[in-house]
């Protein structure tokens, strides 16, 4: 700006320096401004000598210095020396973004005896030198940015970082393979873990799978040792058939209320003999078997369930709905049936929470033209896993649902709801290419003369041994047809598939005995609801958002919550396990400390002004502000306060202040023109 005079207005300490809010020392501040060249990144555009000269005339600035790389050891030493020799009580470093080196320079100031919160960064690289080509314009803008920062720094108060104790117990939500792995890693390091699972037994979707790609090892065989270890681990408190009711508190000190659903079976008395399972006449939909068979009202998910105890589905139980029957109670040799069971609430205190809430499959009935729900022989990938599984409803024989015949021709449809922003989800579900290849191979293992056709858009095999596995599928005589499927319908006892072959440039009509859809992986709806309850971030599709997509992939922006597994995004088993161990490592890194530090730029109340109107309390998203009804004064719980500043804006009387973001400071920063 040509008419910029670089003058500093209104930054002199106020006359009423004794005011309770603004009690900074009444003397004139002594600010040192250190300008970094960043090699030629800043110095190549911003005229450093001119900037130093103009900044040097600003009120409060007693020393200006420049250096090629301020973040280097000699650069930091220059700042430390200057703080002592020039008796500085405020420091500005004009350099790169504060996200990069704010901590570096604040620590350097702390080493020289200056309170770290009296050091501010003027971002003249990312937001000036790199975005402005004209040297004069860049120099003027840099000057303006330093001046704004100067206005802030003279208002800054010395602050002490808060520390809070850590409760070294962890909560893991979800006991699929992600939750199991995280729980075992934390427990094996010697810390207690509360593992909460909403289903009656642990293992998650992995327990439904037949064999796993690309090694074709049996899912049960690799999972059950882990589930058994989890069930027996002295440090793991397993709470199955339970859900998170509420979470309060803050990192290091969460209070969790867990709702244990009524099981109607006393787990301590029950021996898991299974007599009740044989006799129960009640029938219901089986989630675990994907609707392929009707389940019983008293059930366990699988014979190797951990814990190996059944529960009663109250909606399907004849005794609980009609008051007659009671067969299970009659046959139970230990008298473990409790028809009067109710939901119980258990309170747990933990320091860290791992969210491993997992995935569900996209509701394929939304893909109207694919015939799901109308054509019985169109099933999804997980249902086909149950058909392939030795412990499934057909004991591993591939039989189609409609008439139990062995299908001689199966069409596999990939991207059913994935990569489809019109009716499905816009993203790639990542695992379908591989599991479809696996299912086709396994089908051919079971039905030697069976024909498998896979309709695909692209085949994506980025993983160790994945491309080789895909090659194995094509070499095995499995037909790959490139093109999207437009319609699936029934004709006689056949299922017709209309597709296109984009490589040959023609439409095709396929006649099949059965169709398997590789439906999109979506975030588990219960996980989405939980994320909303916990106020942790989710993306547009309900997947939980990591703190940084590259550098903080298992943390969330809410301190103390960590992510593992498909709740964060679609991924295969090895990746899930790796991420779960990473989340456990983050929890353990936290538990390695005795206390946690918390940013001190929180809200604070001036009780002399506060009238207890409660606007702040209603504004706060963290329950950090509470009004004492007797005293009619608001109080901030600094450990809960995340320092957003919303309450300070909501406060009609000006009693609430956001530390180091005071209204006075921002007013003056806005006055800069």
């Amino acid at each position, binding site marked *: *700006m*040509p008419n910029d005079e670089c003058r500093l207005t209104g930054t002199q300490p106020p006359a009423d320096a004794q005011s309770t809010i603004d009690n900074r020392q009444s003397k004139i501040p002594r600010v040192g401004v250190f300008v970094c060249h960043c090699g030629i990144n800043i110095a190549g555009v911003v005229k450093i000598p001119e900037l130093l000269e103009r900044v040097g005339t600003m009120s409060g600035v007693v020393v200006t210095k420049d250096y090629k790389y301020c973040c280097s050891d000699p650069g930091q030493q220059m700042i430390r020396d200057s703080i002592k020799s020039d008796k500085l009580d405020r420091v500005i470093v004009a350099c790169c*973004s*504060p*996200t990069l080196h704010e901590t570096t320079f604040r620590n350097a100031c702390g080493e020289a005896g200056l309170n770290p919160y009296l050091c501010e960064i003027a*971002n003249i*690289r*990312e*937001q*000036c*030198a*790199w*975005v*402005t*080509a*004209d040297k004069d*314009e*860049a120099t*003027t*803008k840099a000057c*303006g*940015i330093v001046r*704004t920062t100067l206005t802030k720094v003279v208002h800054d108060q010395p602050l002490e970082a808060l520390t809070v104790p850590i409760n070294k117990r962890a909560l893991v939500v979800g006991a699929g393979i992600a939750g199991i792995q995280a729980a075992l890693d934390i427990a094996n390091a010697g810390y207690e873990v509360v593992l909460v699972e909403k289903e009656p037994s642990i293992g998650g979707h992995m327990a439904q799978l037949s064999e796993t790609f690309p090694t074709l090892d049996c899912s049960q065989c690799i999972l059950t040792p882990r589930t058994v270890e989890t069930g027996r681990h002295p440090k793991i408190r397993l709470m199955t058939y339970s859900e998170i009711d509420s979470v309060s508190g803050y990192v290091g000190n969460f209070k969790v209320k867990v709702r244990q659903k009524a099981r109607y079976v006393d787990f301590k008395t029950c021996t898991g003999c299974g007599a009740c399972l044989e006799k129960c006449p009640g029938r219901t939909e089986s989630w675990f078997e994907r609707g392929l068979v009707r389940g019983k009202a008293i059930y366990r998910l699988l014979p190797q369930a951990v814990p190996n105890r059944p529960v009663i589905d109250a909606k399907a139980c004849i005794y609980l709905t009609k008051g007659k029957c009671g067969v299970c109670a009659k046959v139970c040799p230990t008298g473990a049936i409790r028809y009067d069971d109710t939901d119980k609430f258990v309170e747990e205190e933990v320091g860290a929470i791992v969210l491993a809430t997992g995935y569900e499959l996209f509701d394929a009935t939304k893909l109207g033209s694919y015939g799901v729900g109308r054509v019985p022989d169109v099933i999804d990938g997980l249902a086909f896993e149950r058909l392939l599984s030795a412990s499934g409803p057909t004991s591993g024989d591939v039989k189609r649902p409609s008439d139990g015949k062995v299908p001689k021709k199966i069409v596999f449809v990939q991207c059913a709801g994935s990569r489809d922003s019109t009716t499905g989800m816009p993203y790639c579900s990542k695992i379908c290419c591989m599991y479809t290849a696996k299912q086709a191979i396994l089908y051919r293992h079971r039905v030697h003369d069976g024909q498998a056709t896979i309709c695909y858009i692209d085949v994506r095999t980025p993983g160790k041994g994945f491309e080789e596995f895909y090659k194995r599928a094509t070499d095995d005589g499995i037909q790959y047809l490139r093109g999207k499927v437009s319609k699936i319908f029934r004709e006689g006892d056949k299922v017709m598939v209309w597709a296109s072959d984009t490589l040959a440039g023609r439409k095709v009509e396929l006649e099949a005995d059965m169709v398997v859809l590789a439906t999109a992986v979506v975030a588990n709806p219960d996980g989405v609801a939980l994320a909303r309850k916990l*106020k942790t*971030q*989710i993306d*547009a599709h309900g997947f939980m*958002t990591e703190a940084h997509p590259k550098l903080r992939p298992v943390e969330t*922006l809410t301190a103390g919550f960590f992510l593992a597994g498909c709740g964060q995004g679609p991924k295969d088993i090895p990746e899930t396990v790796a991420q779960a161990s990473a989340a456990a490592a983050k929890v353990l890194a936290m538990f390695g400390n005795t206390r946690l530090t918390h940013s001190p*730029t929180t809200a604070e109340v001036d009780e002399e002004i506060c009238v207890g109107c409660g606007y702040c309390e209603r*504004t706060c*998203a*963290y329950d950090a502000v509470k009004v004492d009804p007797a005293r009619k004064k608001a109080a901030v719980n600094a450990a809960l306060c*995340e*320092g*957003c*500043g*919303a309450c*300070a*804006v909501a406060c009609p009387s000006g009693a609430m202040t*956001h530390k180091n*973001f005071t*209204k006075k400071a*921002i*007013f003056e*920063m*806005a*006055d*800069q*023109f």
Partner: protein
Amino acid sequence: MADYEPKIVGFLCNWCTYAGADLAGTSRMQYPPNMRPIRVMCSGAVDSVYILRALLEGADGVFMGGCHPGDCHYVSGNYKARRRMVLFNSVMQSLGLESDRVWLRWISAAEGRKFADTITEMTEHLQKKGPSPFKEKWEV
């Protein structure tokens, strides 16, 4: 008015728009130097009086950037900012003041291009409009 350069005060939320502005820099996307950034923790922490004050003290425009709806680092701060802006705009309009001098935009940490484009667009918009009449009105 050939040499008129609008002055813009920008309130950038720390988690999204400030990071978006950093990304614009890292990607070397050029935009006019008319905006002076002020880093705030959240768009929900920008009081309407900050905007008024900036306008009265000589800014030709005020830019406010926050996280996209649903993405607020502080759960709901951007919704608070949005509600406040609706009210603020209606007050401005009822007083016959130009509400298009105050822009609220959602710019995520991944949207460096959008940040650069928005600042360019706003600068050009204010260039066309001419200097803000606010500051003169306070000459008694």
